[in-house]
C-alpha cells in the first residue's frame, strides 16, 4: 500500500510553478519553497516532485543534493 498524495495540492503547485516561470520570477528560493510544498503534498513519494525539475537551474539541484547528502551523514 502506497501513501496517497494530495493530488489537488500537486496540481495547484504545478500551475503555480508554471505561472511563476512564465512571469520570469522563478528563483532559487521560490523553487526551493515549491519543492518543499511538493514534497509534503507527495506524502513521501519523491517521484511526484519531478514536475519541478524543469524550472530548476543545474546549480539549485546540485546544491540541494549536496545538502541532503550532508543531512544523511552521521554526526561525527
Amino acid at each position, binding site marked *: 500500500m502506497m501513501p496517497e498524495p494530495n493530488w489537488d495540492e500537486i496540481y495547484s503547485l504545478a500551475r503555480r510553478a508554471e505561472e511563476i516561470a512564465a512571469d520570469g520570477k522563478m528563483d532559487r528560493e521560490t523553487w526551493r519553497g515549491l519543492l518543499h510544498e511538493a514534497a509534503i503534498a507527495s506524502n513521501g513519494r519523491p*517521484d*511526484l516532485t519531478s514536475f519541478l*525539475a524543469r524550472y530548476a537551474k543545474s546549480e539549485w539541484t546540485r546544491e540541494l543534493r549536496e545538502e541532503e547528502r550532508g543531512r*544523511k551523514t552521521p554526526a561525527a
Partner: protein
Amino acid sequence: MPQKLERPLPYGSLRSDLSQERTREILRVLDRPEILDALKRNKIMSIVLERLPEKSQSAYYDFAQKSITVNTARKLGIHFGEEWRPGRTGNMSAATKDKAESTRRALLQEIAHHFENGNTEVVRLRDAAFRDPRKRPITRYAAADAGEYWAESFVAYMVDPDALATYDPVGSMMVKKVLSAARRPTP
C-alpha cells in the same frame, strides 16, 4: 540481449553503482528503434544511475545539462508497489511490483523530458494534447501539467500501449506523433 548494449549508445557518459549486468538490465529499456533514433538526433549528455540519499527528488532531468539522474535505491511502498489501474494509478514508475522495472520506468520518464527539451514541435504536440478536452490522463500524476502528461503517457506507451490506446486515445496519438517528430532532424 547483452551484445546489443555493447554497441555505442547515444549518450555522453554513464555512471552507475549497479553491477554491469543490472545496469544493462535497466538500460535495455532504451533499446528500441524509436528511442534510439530520437536519441541519435538529440543526444543525452549523461545518465547517472546511483543510490541517492535525496528525500525530495528521486529521478530528475536537468534541462540545462541534458542529464538524467535516477535513484537506484527504490523502495517498495515509496517508489513502487502500486496496482496498475489506468486513470487511477498515481504514476507509472510506481505501478509495478518489480524494483528493476520501476527503475526502468523512471528512466523512461526522464527520457521523455529529454525529448521535449528544446524541440518546439514536440512541445507544440504535447501542449495541444494536454489542452484537448477529450484527454484522459493515464495516471493521476499525468494530470499535473503538459510535461508530465507527455512523460507519463510515453512510459505507458512503452510498457502497456494497449492500455494507453484504450484508456486515453488522445495520449496514445500524442506519443506516436511526438516520437515521429523527435526522430526527425531538428530545423
